[in-house]
């Protein structure tokens, strides 16, 4: 099992590296959250700190959001959909290794490259831009990284559960985007949750989206106390469990319907 993981990871990192243009583009698209940041800075310019968030808070928040976006977003559902249409899914089924692991390693492989490229870049920027401030102790950093990792895992498992819808509709991507789009609101992506209307903020704290975005970010800015940290981790763990269960159930019912299209 471990050998299979190692080999698959190696291969998928190789594939990722074969697409140098794609990688460059990815790094470029990390500018998008900086556009959102830019608007917040304009707000701060007009009326001063919003709810106690000043310039440096926003810069720190969105710089890290760029990294999190690239490291925790799962593209699994699109790979799955295209595998379904092209028939490559059959090859994954023929292997004596559950497709779950084959997809998981694929996700990890791509993520690994992004991290290797982005982290040094971000560290460099952090040192150069004085507005960035992450005043954390070692435990804080460790917790943030761990939160990012569990958030990523949740995203993958969530995507996997949604992907099994393809057994019925041959396409799951759109349904997932709807769900994910709802999440953009509740995750802390559009705006930090504390700046959202109270009802949105409260809902966001119980939904699975904040786990990979708002939660690690607020942790990073040192805005969460012990109880809130524990509660957030519990929410993440709970959702991972729920989606794993849904995935298993749905897989077992769906696999009977698989039509092995495409050759």
């Amino acid at each position, binding site marked *: 099992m471990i*050998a*299979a993981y*190692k*080999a*698959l990871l*190696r*291969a998928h990192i*190789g*594939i990722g590296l*074969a*697409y140098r243009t794609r990688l460059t583009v990815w790094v470029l698209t990390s500018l998008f959250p900086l556009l959102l940041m830019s608007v917040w800075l304009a707000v701060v310019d007009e009326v001063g700190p919003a709810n106690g968030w000043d310039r440096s808070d926003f810069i720190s928040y969105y710089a890290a959001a760029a990294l999190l976006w690239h490291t925790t977003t799962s593209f699994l559902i699109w790979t799955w959909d295209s595998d379904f249409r092209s*028939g*490559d899914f*059959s*090859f994954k*089924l*023929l*292997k*004596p*290794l559950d497709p779950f692991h084959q997809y998981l390693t694929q996700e990890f492989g791509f993520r690994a490259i992004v991290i290797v490229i982005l982290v040094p870049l971000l560290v460099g920027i952090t040192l150069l831009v004085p507005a960035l401030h992450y005043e954390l102790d070692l435990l804080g950093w460790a917790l943030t990284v761990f939160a990012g990792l569990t958030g990523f895992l949740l995203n993958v498992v969530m995507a996997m559960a949604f992907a099994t819808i393809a057994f019925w509709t041959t396409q799951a991507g759109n349904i997932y985007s709807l769900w994910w789009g709802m999440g953009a609101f509740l995750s802390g992506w559009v705006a930090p949750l504390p700046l959202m209307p109270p009802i949105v903020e409260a809902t966001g704290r119980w939904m699975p989206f904040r786990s990979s975005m708002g939660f690690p970010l607020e942790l990073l800015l040192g805005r969460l106390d012990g109880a809130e940290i524990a509660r957030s981790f519990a929410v993440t763990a709970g959702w991972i469990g729920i989606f794993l269960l849904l995935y298993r159930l749905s897989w077992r019912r769906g*696999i*009977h*319907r*698989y*039509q*092995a299209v*495409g*050759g």
Partner: protein
Amino acid sequence: MQEPAIKVDELTKHFRVHQREAGLASGVRGFFRRKYADVKAVDGVSFSIQPGEMVGFLGPNGAGKTTTLKCLSGLLHPTSGAASVLGFTPHLRRQEFLRSFTLVMGQRNQLFWDLPAMETFLVNQAIYRIPEKDFRIGLDELVALLELSPYLDKPVRNLSLGERMRAELAAALLHRPRVLFLDEPTLGLDVTAAAAVRRFLTDYNERHQATVLLTSHYMTDVAELTRRVIVIDHGRLRFDGNLTELIDATTPHRIIRITMSEPVDPARLGEFGDVVKTDGVTAVLQVRRNATKETAARMLSELPIEDIAIEEPEIEEVIRRVFAER
């Protein structure tokens, strides 16, 4: 008699498909009101194959060959009936089962498109848990037989179709499967590449006593690789037996090919049988099967024959007749 390697009993697979005619208008209509039809891709097929046998699986497009192979590979759950491969029920997809067979589809491939083929081999080694020593031995053997060594380090996308197919075969056989399902393994290959694949398959079968079930549109594949053929059409079994029996049963004639020392009038040739074609000096004739010997003898004595050959009809022709019969 041994336990068969593959046993198929009244296997049936129905698909529910949405029916649609061409054109945008009917597309829009179908969007609101859907017509479905049950397609009987495989409809009560039974056969069994002994270990080590190589069997040709024939039928026109859409006959149900690929669907049967997919049922046998555990990709599809049969609607009814049963299949067993090496004693396993395929669609339960047990690990031991998945490790003991392979499915090769000529028009698709499992290789990582952007990486050298070697990477796929290494991944398969890990996934199939092939011990390092067996892996090396098996790989060396496959690389030698398939003459792969110049291509191992090139990205798959840069290989030609034939090279890619050979690499695909190596990837599919690394774990030394005991059962091979081959769906059009020579599709699109040129003559030399196809011959290389056939040579390899015969060799593999002899070395490892593997059971092979093969579909192909190229009758050379079938004639060279297999003695027994199973013919299906519209999801039903039409014939199961020796290739020669099939030929005897369906084509009551043979072909005589002659070369003569001087031109002979086609009308004169017509006295011996149906002239398929002639240019005066060479000719191809069709004669009744049971009169072949006698006709050939008469030709030898009455015509200025330089060379004579008696051939079975093209197998494509045979298959055409099988399906024209209904």
